[in-house]
């Protein structure tokens, strides 16, 4: 299940110190030998039974576990919500450090996955024959869970970005749906000039959003190879994004309301904010949290820089098996059921999850679904197109969780002062690089 970062205790989580370098070289020594096996071994383990613990904050997983237990009566799946996003990562990192206490299966967002891969905390899923599943997932999500050395998680859901817009507000102010960022800026100016209480968008400064927008602009600010890391937050993509966003920011066209606050839900409900640039998982949250404007919203592709369709992933989670797990075959069986087996995946889709499995994304039932909330629009057609338009080759840092935690102190300051976002990005890059060096990485910045 996707989550935006929990804003609470961002600082505190950083304080808790997700120390990486120490665990870099020393892989976990607590593994119970080489647990691996093919589909037959997994089936035998499921028959033999046992108990596994799953850490997740996604509410549909309990339903998946119930169905799984019904199918394999000897298996008990203990689903635990150990916290959302950062809270969970802090606990996981501590359990890894302590050498015990980690669950068998754990939910990790794509952006946080490299950190846990590099510290040797996760089991290589190639050992269970999961390398055969490559074609079952979209290219971008599969790319997020694999490295040259192995497969470290199975994609659970995905969040290709689109533009949600309030048709009622667009009609009222005579706005056309923007297809390029220049048109988007023009629409923002027109709306705010016609009614100064209204904004085309809100953006209080959010690391996950900013990195996704740089991704959509074709940027590759992060790359890493082992413990050698390159950071360039002034590459062509980043500069393309800031060129647009500086105009919006400096001309007061962005509402400073932070995402996921009650104020934000209110503003989306009463038309104060007319568009939302977000992941494909958002419709379920629209339906549960923003009833006031039901029927008014529509979905369109993200505006582009040059007319060529482009999107990026925003949010989205994967599920991994920990090295600490003492029953990896059983864990692999559950993981396969939850994220690969059509039965398990369907339970999550029905609960509003946006899948990463191509078979589901391409199915007629999924594509033809007409959403009442979105005025009868077949939104999945737009969302699936976005998932195909996601630009390839993106990488996150092996210490992205920390990097995102200092975003408010760096780029966030440019947002607050309505200054040049490039200054904030340079500052973010410097502080992130300094942290990486402290943690034992060889960091180069261009």
């Amino acid at each position, binding site marked *: *299940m*996707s*989550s*935006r970062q*929990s804003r*609470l*205790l961002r600082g*505190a989580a950083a*304080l*808790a*110190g997700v120390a990486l370098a120490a665990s870099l070289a020393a892989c976990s020594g607590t593994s119970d030998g080489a647990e691996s096996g093919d589909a037959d071994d997994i089936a035998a383990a499921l028959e033999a039974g046992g108990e596994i613990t799953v*850490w997740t*904050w*996604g*509410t*549909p997983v309990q339903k998946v576990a119930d169905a799984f237990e019904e199918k394999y009566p000897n298996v008990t799946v203990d689903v*635990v*919500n*150990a*916290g*959302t*996003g950062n*809270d969970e990562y*802090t*606990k996981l990192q*501590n*359990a890894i*450090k*302590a*050498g*015990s*206490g980690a669950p068998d299966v754990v939910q990790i967002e794509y952006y946080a996955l490299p950190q846990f891969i590099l510290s040797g905390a996760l089991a290589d899923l190639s050992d269970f024959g999961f390398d055969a599943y490559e074609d079952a997932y979209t290219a971008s999500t599969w790319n997020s869970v694999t490295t040259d050395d192995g497969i470290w998680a199975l994609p659970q*859901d995905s969040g290709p970005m689109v533009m949600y817009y309030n048709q009622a507000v667009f009609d009222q102010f005579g706005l056309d749906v923007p297809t390029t960022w220049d048109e988007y800026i023009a629409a923002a100016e027109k709306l705010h000039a016609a009614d100064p209480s209204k904004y085309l968008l809100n953006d209080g400064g959010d690391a996950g959003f900013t990195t996704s927008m740089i991704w959509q602009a074709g940027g590759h600010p992060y790359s890493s190879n082992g413990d050698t890391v390159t950071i360039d937050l002034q590459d062509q993509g980043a500069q393309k994004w800031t060129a647009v966003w500086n105009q919006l920011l400096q001309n007061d066209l962005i509402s400073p309301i932070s995402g*996921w606050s*009650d104020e934000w*839900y*209110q503003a989306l*409900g*009463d038309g104060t904010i007319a568009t939302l640039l977000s992941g494909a*998982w958002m419709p*379920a*949250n629209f339906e*549960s*949290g*923003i*009833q*006031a404007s039901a029927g008014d919203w529509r979905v369109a592709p993200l505006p582009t820089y040059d007319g060529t369709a482009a999107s990026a992933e925003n949010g989205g989670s994967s599920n991994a098996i920990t090295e600490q797990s003492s029953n990896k075959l059983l864990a692999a069986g559950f993981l396969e059921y939850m994220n690969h087996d059509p039965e398990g995946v369907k339970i*999550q889709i029905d*609960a*509003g*999850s*946006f899948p990463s499995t191509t078979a589901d994304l391409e199915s007629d039932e999924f594509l033809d679904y007409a959403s009442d909330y979105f005025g009868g629009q077949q939104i999945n057609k737009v969302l699936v197109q976005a998932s195909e338009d996601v630009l390839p080759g993106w990488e996150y840092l092996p210490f992205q969780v920390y990097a995102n935690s200092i975003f408010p102190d760096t780029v966030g300051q440019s947002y607050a002062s309505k200054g040049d976002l490039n200054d904030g990005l340079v500052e973010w890059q410097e502080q992130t690089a300094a942290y990486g060096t402290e943690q034992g990485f060889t960091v180069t910045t261009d």
Partner: protein
Amino acid sequence: MSAASSTRSPRRRPRNSVLLTVFMTLFVVYTLLPLFWLVVNSTKTQPELFASFGLWFSDGFHLFDNIGRVLTYQDGIFLRWLGNTLLYVVVGAGGATLLATLGGYGLAKFRFPGKRAIFAIILGATAVPGTALAVPTFLMFSQLGLTNTPWAIILPSLISPFGLYLVWTFAVDAIPDELLEAARIDGAGEIRIFFSVAARLLAPGFATVLLLTTVATWNNYFLPLIMLSRPEWYPLTVGLNQWNAQSTTVGGEAVYDLVITGSLLAIVPIVAAFLFLQRYWQSGLAAGAVKQ
């Protein structure tokens, strides 16, 4: 009463200051406004919450509906969290206060070698924020197999260097040495002296420390967040944050109305405890002031 007070030493007439009154009024508004917001918004349904002005009531009054839903949501886990918080407060804060009182009294009234070193250590310990110790404490507790148990919260809560220091400095003045000597001459043992003589004189200090440790334990967030990964042992603080975080997840129901009403319910006991203990505290301080 007025006749009686006039025979005492002349009191200073209270000065009326417009500036002070204005400042105090502003401060009261500043401190009460969030509380007012909380009360107002816990009467709204979630759609009303998003559609009405934050600092005034909406059309409907749903406080009792909301309370009912808070208490029953997710099989009534709120009550479990409330019970956990009470457990941590009663055992943790209560134990911390008892230990601080015993230790503070001992340090104030007995001479023994190493006292200065203990003084230095305790003074130093008050300067270390609990947050900094949370992760090392976690690793230690993990070795002991105590994480994910109530002990992981209670044991660290039992230590209150500041409370110890407070009782110590309080006991130095509040308990005359002569009184203890008199009791010893009368043949009372040290334990009896503590409970029948010293404890009563220390009551105001005890109440103050109890107040501080209760508030600290009630509001404890970071330690349980680190120590516990199972919701059934969460205190209210971590549990409510989990509800709050739920609205940012896919398919997760946004329950801001329950978070707000739950927060209101969560502060009622602590406000009551504060008001209750404050009376003892004030009267105790006053009693001490008249004595000498």
